[in-house]
């Protein structure tokens, strides 16, 4: 595993006069679980969107599995703050539609993914009426639907109760163990203690430090 799965070389992302990313450099390796921490406005979400190919860097390059983010889209699973699901459709209908985008036709795969995030495939209620926690799980299900090698998750545990957050962390750990690369932006760093292989700290659009685990007396402003 010598070649990095994701290579980010001095990426700058400008929105008009504001620079969200200010020269980010990173090499991320396959089969690793990376936790991205930092205050609001540190550029975590922008970096995630850049990795997913949704935001083109103003300067600098990003290569994912040796390809550009756009061409590597089959291997990327992306989850964002908004649910990226249609509120009027039920969870299964949403997944069935998104599966079609990836060329997956069988329903069994959708049902299996829904069960793996701890939800009931037969639930007919539209996603709009889901609780926030359920909606995040269904959004995670959509992100892992096509079994991507790389998972880019933006605060998957926010407003999820502690019990189900623990389950989701277990699920992500299992995925990391099965060889996937995870890139998780979160404010609940404590949840990933002992799970994440590396913690990447971002501040003001740059990566300021990378630690193997959280410092023992960690009560920094980041964790809630």
């Amino acid at each position, binding site marked *: 595993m010598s070649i990095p799965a994701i290579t980010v070389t001095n990426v700058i992302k*400008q929105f008009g006069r504001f620079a969200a990313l200010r020269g980010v450099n990173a090499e991320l390796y396959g089969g690793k679980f990376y936790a991205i921490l930092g205050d609001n406005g540190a550029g975590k979400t922008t970096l995630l969107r850049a990795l997913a190919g949704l935001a083109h860097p103003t300067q600098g390059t990003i290569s994912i599995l040796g390809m550009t983010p756009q061409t590597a889209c089959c291997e990327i699973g992306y989850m964002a703050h908004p649910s990226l699901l249609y509120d009027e459709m039920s969870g299964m209908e949403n997944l069935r539609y998104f599966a079609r985008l990836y060329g997956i036709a069988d329903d069994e795969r959708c049902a299996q993914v829904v069960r793996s995030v701890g939800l009931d495939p037969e639930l007919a209620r539209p996603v709009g009426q889901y609780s926030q926690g359920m909606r995040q799980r269904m959004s995670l299900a959509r992100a892992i639907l096509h079994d991507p090698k790389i998972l880019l998750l933006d605060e998957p545990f926010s407003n999820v109760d502690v019990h189900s957050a623990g389950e989701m962390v277990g699920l992500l750990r299992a995925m990391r163990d099965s060889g996937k690369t995870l890139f998780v932006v979160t404010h609940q760093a404590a949840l990933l203690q002992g799970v994440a292989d590396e913690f990447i700290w971002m501040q003001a*659009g*740059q990566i300021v*430090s990378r630690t193997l685990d959280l*410092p023992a007396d960690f009560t920094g402003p980041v964790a809630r």
Partner: protein
Amino acid sequence: MKRAFPILAIVTAVLLAYALYQALVVAPTDAQQGDVYRIIYYHVPSAWTAFLLFFINFIASVRYLADGKPSTRQAAKWIAVAVGVAGAVAAFVIPLPGGIRPSAIATTVLAIPVFYFLLGKYFPGEKLDVLAVTTAEVGVVFCTIVLVTGPIWARPVWGIWWAPGDIRLTSTLVLWLIYVSYLILRRFSDSAQTQKLAAALAVFGALDVPLVYFSIWFFRTQHPQPVIGGGGSMDPKMLDVLMISWTAFLFFAFLVCWSRYRLEILRREVEQAHAMQSLSGADSSVSISSPAVSTRGSQ
């Protein structure tokens, strides 16, 4: 380079004065319209200049879009050449309605590949977009003049302010509307995406022009109405004055474009400086108590 601007400015001033003299004094008085027809020496050159500027905007936009994606870069070169050649041939083969001389169409279409490669060479990458903004804005200024002088001319001669039947004037109006919406789009979207969106709209606008011309032309044959400047051929002396006037206008347009171009470059530098300032600003701010830097990403 710096000294060239004032010299050119003087030359342009002289040319403009000479053209004014030609238009008002030297050119013969028109038989039917008397002296008021001399508006043509400002009305028509402004229109030609505006069309030239919009044409440059179209080619710059197409080139900018084509160069954006490496896959389309080569293909676009061949398409440009093909369009030029095929268009030139077609102009003479297909019977052209609307009294358009095939030579006019042929030169316009042949200009596409010529400009395509010229602009690509002298305005690489980002500069193409700066050129597109410049030509669009200055083009709209000249187009406004055409739309103002047109009615001023129609009023005394035909007693009507607006001649909807006049293909050229109505087409110019539609062209003006398209490029004003182009400028509005540029103002309303933030800088990162504007360039691609505006380039796409410029292509749409240009594709629209022939359709506008022919739809109004056919509309006019069904409902004939007065045409400004008459369709007939012009007295050669008048034509010479028209050419002099157009040359002066082209010099003037070049000057205005040059300064607007430099203005746009300066605006983008200031924009860049702001961003850089926020970049450097980040280092000086107090860093939060993030843990000590540890080993680089472990293998």
